[in-house]
């Protein structure tokens, strides 16, 4: 086999307060397809940003050797000039420009500022042929599907004389057919001598296209395996991805003593949701789950598994296009077509993205806490600020929100404290069912423990808790039962006693065999 085209040696990248990459070494051979896999937050995207110059030379430690030379890219343009092109998960196309215009954006065929349209169109057609797209180059990008847009991105990369193509979860947004086509194209490009790095956590895809795979975990490169070797099974890759012990500590669960009730507190039956724009795609596909009083039920899944989409859709249809399914509370069917209806039935949803969907950052702690249940502190439409202050002071103390007063703007708090405000807000609303979406994302270990304690306490009081998380140890430490989802489908349900990280990861990476 050919020698290495790319060597990344002992890369270390720190952000304020976080070490995103601690000692990553990656070697990619000329002409191969190299997969990188790892859990959410393992450092895959950061590594690719270091490579492509998004994080410029000097902002990280370690050396990057491309084609035998040490590279010092100061931005994306510099890395592109050397033939390294990255295609991000969120496509970077301008929707209302044509395919041809997008391909040559920033790199136009022009003389003295005037575009040569004939040359543009001719060259675009040629590139489109190479990626197997037969739409006219003057078609607007918004008029073609996501799958084809992905191909346009690759055509754009080819126009830049790409030598090393980096694809960040290229099939996450594609349906099976488009995924298959894309993977074929990657193999075809390989035949033309283009080296690719593909970030993916769909193991069947990796097995189909990749020659070798490097596993990242907690910002470190764990190992590089030869995919074609017989001993590299999916289980082998999975054990590399999870490999870590349960080193987090969790509070002791206090069991709920009360009446569990005949029917589960919340039951969702055959829930199906379509993507808000791409209506061909089922983001949530026939999912049924339930949670009893006093129970903490986890939902595990990787990015794009449809967990958040399920939760938001159940909570007042705030995501996507609902197509079918029913919600039952204590065995009775309820309507949750709007957020007030869902809240009225005692359901609360604590969002994954607290900055954008959870908090009004420019407003104060007390006003954020009271917002979802203002009725409780007001009479005849007038807020009793006295009462509001008392309530939020109570939460500030009991939740240990670190702020001098409740009149501090939420935007000034740390992530952990912001999360406590969001939780306070929903606890104040007095729900019976809480759906917590990544409640500990991006907060430090100490604050995590405090949040676990609160969740335990809620369950002990007889609330039903749905706990969505990407961190398997957290789910194993906290939940009574764990569901797994992959690509919008429910792929498993395990009681805590039987759950292991390996078993969960296997179900989380389960996908229908890629066609062909």
């Amino acid at each position, binding site marked *: 086999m050919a020698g290495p085209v790319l060597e990344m040696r002992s890369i270390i990248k720190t952000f304020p307060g976080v070490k995103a990459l601690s000692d990553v070494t990656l070697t990619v051979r000329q002409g191969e397809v190299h997969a990188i896999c790892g859990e959410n937050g393992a450092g895959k995207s950061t590594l690719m940003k270091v490579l492509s110059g998004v994080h410029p030379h000097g902002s990280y430690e370690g050396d990057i050797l491309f084609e035998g030379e040490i590279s010092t890219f100061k931005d994306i343009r510099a890395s592109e000039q050397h033939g390294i092109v990255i295609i991000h998960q969120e496509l970077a196309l301008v929707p209302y420009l044509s395919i041809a215009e997008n391909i040559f954006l920033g790199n136009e065929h022009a003389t003295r500022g005037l575009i040569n349209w004939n040359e543009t169109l001719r060259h675009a057609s040629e590139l489109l042929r190479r990626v197997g797209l037969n739409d006219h180059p003057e078609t607007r990008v918004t008029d073609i599907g996501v799958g084809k847009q992905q191909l346009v991105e690759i055509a754009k990369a080819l126009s830049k004389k790409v030598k090393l193509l980096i694809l960040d979860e290229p099939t996450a947004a594609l349906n099976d057919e488009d995924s298959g086509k894309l993977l074929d194209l990657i193999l075809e490009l390989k035949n033309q001598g283009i080296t690719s790095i593909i970030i993916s956590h769909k193991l069947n895809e990796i097995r189909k296209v990749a020659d070798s795979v490097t596993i990242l975990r907690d910002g470190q490169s764990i190992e590089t395996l030869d995919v074609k070797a017989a001993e590299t099974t999916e289980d082998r890759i999975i054990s590399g991805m999870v490999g870590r012990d349960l080193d987090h500590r969790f509070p002791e669960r206090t069991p709920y003593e009360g009446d569990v009730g005949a029917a589960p507190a919340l039951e969702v039956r055959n829930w199906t949701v379509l993507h808000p724009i791409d209506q061909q795609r089922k983001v949530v596909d026939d999912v049924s789950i339930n949670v009893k009083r006093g129970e903490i039920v986890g939902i595990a899944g990787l990015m794009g598994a449809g967990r958040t989409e399920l939760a938001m859709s159940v909570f007042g249809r705030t995501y996507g296009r609902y197509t079918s399914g029913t919600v039952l509370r204590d065995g009775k069917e309820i309507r949750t077509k709007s*957020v007030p209806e869902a809240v009225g039935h005692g359901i609360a949803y604590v969002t994954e993205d607290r900055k*954008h969907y959870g*908090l009004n950052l420019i407003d104060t702690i007390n006003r954020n806490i009271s917002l979802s249940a*203002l009725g409780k502190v007001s009479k005849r*439409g007038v*807020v009793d600020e006295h009462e509001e202050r008392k309530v939020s002071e109570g939460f500030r103390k009991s939740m240990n929100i670190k702020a001098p007063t409740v009149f501090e703007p939420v935007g000034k708090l740390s992530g952990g404290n912001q999360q406590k405000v969001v939780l306070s807000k929903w606890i104040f609303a007095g729900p019976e069912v809480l759906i917590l979406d990544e409640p500990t994302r991006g907060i430090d270990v100490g604050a995590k423990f405090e949040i676990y304690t609160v969740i335990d306490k809620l369950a002990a009081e007889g609330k039903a808790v749905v706990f969505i998380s990407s961190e398997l140890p957290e789910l194993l430490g906290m939940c009574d039962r764990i569901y797994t989802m992959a690509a919008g489908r429910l792929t498993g349900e395990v009681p805590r006693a039987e759950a292991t990280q390996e078993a969960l990861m296997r179900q989380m990476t389960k996908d229908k065999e890629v066609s062909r």
Partner: protein
Amino acid sequence: MSTDVTAKTPAPAPPGKSGGSATDGGLLQLVLNGLRRNMRQYGMLIALGLIVALFAVWTDGDLLLPRNVSNLVLQNSYILILAIGMMLVIIAGHIDLSVGSLTAFVGAFAAVLTVQHDVPWPVAVVLCLLMGAVAGAVQGFFIAYGGIPSFIVTLAGMLIFRGLTEILLEGQTLGPFPDGLQKMGNGFLPATGPDTNYHNLTLLLGLALIVFAVLQEVRDRKRQQEFSLDVLPRNIFLLKLVSISAAILVVTMLLASYKGAPIILLILGVLVVGYGYVMRNAVFGRHIYAIGGNLPAAKLSGVRDKKVTFLVFVNMGALAALAGMAIAARLNAASPKAGLNYELEAIASAFIGGASMSGGVGTVLGAIIGGLVLGVLNNGMNLLSVGSDWQQVIKGLALLAAVGFDVWNKRKVGS
């Protein structure tokens, strides 16, 4: 500006015997902190004071003559009424370009009702307010439920209502209005009681206002103390009370030594207190701040965002109707060109008074302060016979300076 503030503040703070534990440094720190937190509001209040002082000097005191103060109120009342509504719209994260045209349209409607069809004026007032609310409701419907950006809907409204005004009036000016309606625009409180060289009712009203304001402040302070929050040290608090009382007293005396308090000022006062209360204390007000501050978060918190947006525009329509009647009544005629550019003045008032382009921020009092800054600039420059050409240039610069200062200040604080 900021150096001004820091240089000035120590002066009014008599050091020492506050009885509190605060040392001189601590005291200064406290005042500075308070100022910094409310930089925009205090900044604009100080700017307003400076502008008043400057023009008072330049005009040899003409600015503060009782007759002129009375005029100032009459001339600017409708902009201030519009600014209140506009502040709500902007806090909710929208904009309303149609209010200028809508004032003209409602003025014309009032004229058609009272002048051409002899409808009794109280009935006409109610019908006009309804008309404004309906106009606001139509626009609000398209914005809230139709999902069309407010800029577009109200730009359309601006054209439509201006056109409808000309259709209603057939391009002519229509008047005069019945007495009752005229009073609304340029009437004063009736004179009663013994002859004191002053307007008695106005004096009484001013005194009542002072008592009310002082009681309110004292109650607020007590409540804050109950919660062991930082309160102003006693002597600073007393100073604040004295300043508020003095300010009200001066305005009262000025008005009372001319014809008394204009009716429209009373209406405006009720609006300021009422809307201030709603925005601070009512669930509805909270919801406006919430949808402007972070719409997705408000939605996920169960705020009925569409209904709130709709009502904000209904309210804007009703206030525009009120302003429209006041203008028509003051000019004693409905004109096709009435209310031209008023939407821009109202928007400028809101932004000078601390609103944010992205929504979620602002107070009713801020809109009033912003409106007064523009009003005093207008009036003062008129007294100095500055041409309308330069007036516009100066007002434009004032808007730019106010918002620029705010942006700069925010960046410096680094939040």
